[in-house]
């Protein structure tokens, strides 16, 4: 099969490094929350109810595009008993 003429990797490389980092972090956090939620056997609705949130809020968290606040990350870390983000020296 033929490939597109413009390399997708080149398209990506031309984007802002800050945006690359931002999207990468948002996806990483979102995927980790999804993993922890499924490991605990929680549906989206159960997860939302356990945290006193609307299911639409959980949908946003799992979309890979949510700009998480420290407050939300702290809430989720506390709920799962696991640090979601660690800061290296």
């Amino acid at each position, binding site marked *: *099969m033929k490939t*597109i003429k*413009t390399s997708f990797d080149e398209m*990506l490389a031309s984007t802002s490094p800050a945006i690359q980092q931002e*999207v990468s972090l948002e996806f990483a956090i979102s995927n980790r929350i999804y993993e922890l939620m499924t490991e605990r056997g929680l549906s989206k609705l159960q997860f939302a109810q356990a945290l006193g949130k609307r299911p639409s809020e959980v949908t*946003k968290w799992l*979309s*890979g595009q949510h700009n998480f606040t420290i407050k939300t990350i702290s809430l989720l870390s506390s709920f799962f008993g696991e640090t979601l983000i660690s800061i290296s020296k």
Partner: protein
Amino acid sequence: MSEAELRLVKAAENCTIYSIQFLSEDESEFERFYAKFRDESVYNEDFERLLNIIGRIADFGAFERFFRPEGKMSDRVCALPVLKSRLRLYCLRLSDKILILGNGGVKATRTYNEDDTLKGYVITLQNFDRLITEGVKNRSILVTENTIETKNTFDI
């Protein structure tokens, strides 16, 4: 009707990404979307986010939670939105490991149906979805776990 073929955008471990190219055009639908927004100032940041979202989808998989359903319940058309932006890229999500990118634009109306251009992009994908289903049935298209194998030219 216009003749079109599939083009490979990126083959990654967890997702293979394709686009559709009309034979009357020099570029695939995704490249036409790229050409439209790469130098556009208002939506440039959203557009760059969208490119990176596609990059992460290639790495992790085209999971349903990353998309918004569009089209009809009976098809696999979805939109890749940028949250808090009106920029949309329309896609066909065949599975967690196969994604076909279409064209997109700025959704300035309440639904895509109210915008003839966006509606046209969605209809193209709906028709392509139907042709893939038919092709799999008549065995002119083989859809494996993470690839689409075909030499077909499609009449969309």
